[in-house]
């Protein structure tokens, strides 16, 4: 594993840890919801504009959102991993393929 890939993995783990720590800190401060600010502003906008926001395809409950966002993470991770080997491959970067 090269230095860049190792540092990228460390950054991913560190950020994930930070999210968990922030989540527990928020819960400890009495915020049990911690929902997205996008949704909150959308709800405010809908109230003042007499609109009814709705999902494009289907409504997801909170568990559905967790599953959905995890799925996005997995799909994104697979896509990134597939491209990663080509982009960051040590041999390729020294092989003169890049003509920037």
């Amino acid at each position, binding site marked *: 594993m090269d*230095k*860049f890939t190792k540092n990228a993995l460390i*950054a991913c783990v560190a*950020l994930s840890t930070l*999210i968990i720590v*922030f*989540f527990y*800190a*928020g819960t*400890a*401060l*009495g*915020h049990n*919801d*911690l*929902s*997205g*600010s*996008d949704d909150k*502003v*959308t709800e*405010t*906008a*809908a109230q*003042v*504009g007499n*609109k*009814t*926001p*709705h*999902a*494009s*395809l*289907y409504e*997801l409950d909170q568990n*559905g*959102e967790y599953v*959905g*966002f995890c*799925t*996005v*993470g997995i*799909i*994104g*991770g*697979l*896509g*990134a991993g*597939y*491209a*990663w080997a*080509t*982009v*960051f491959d040590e041999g*390729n*970067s020294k092989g003169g*393929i*890049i*003509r*920037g």
Partner: protein
Amino acid sequence: MHISDGILEPQWIILWWIIAIVFIAVGVVQIRQKTKDNPRYVPMLALMGAAVLVISVWHIPVPVTGSSSHPCGTPMAAIIVGPFPVAVISAIALFFQTFVGHGGLTTIGANNFSMGIVGAFTGFGTWVALRKFRVSIFWAAGMAGFIGDVFTYVTSAFQLAVSLHPEAMFHYWGIFLLGYVPTQLPIAIMEFVFTGLIIRHIAEVRPEMMRIGRTLTKPIVGE
């Protein structure tokens, strides 16, 4: 910035779609040209697309405000692959995000305008301007991330205000912006840090990657 369906007025939905399509068309042309110049541009674009898809649903809780929000990732992508192609990958990311109830199908144009166009171009513009003044890579890229993130949400608040209350646009722009700011400001600072670190790291370890997108970085990066 993920505005749901059923909020914006139809004329605004159409306008944001038209603007987004213009940028996407230019982006597609640029992608084709860059792919001819460098075959590794496509995997780099795919990597950035995957990064934007994940980063822009990456809800980070802000304990003090009791809500969560996400960074954009588009300023970082714009520095590496160029701002016009980011309009394309951002639109694709937003499309997939509708399947998990994030954003709307009719509002992809509006959401892409705020995140994929304004976020990418303000971030990229900041990067280019600061590098021309010989600001370090970390600070230039970090500021690009911060500015791109902040302007994404300034634009989203504007889109809501101008569609719902054109007669008192500035008043409601401020109200919606105040709804975003407490949570988004810490996230923008986080975007500052990770954009700065990632771009600096790429410039140090893989400097040739900074030229893949031919984003004016060749004469700017060399310190």
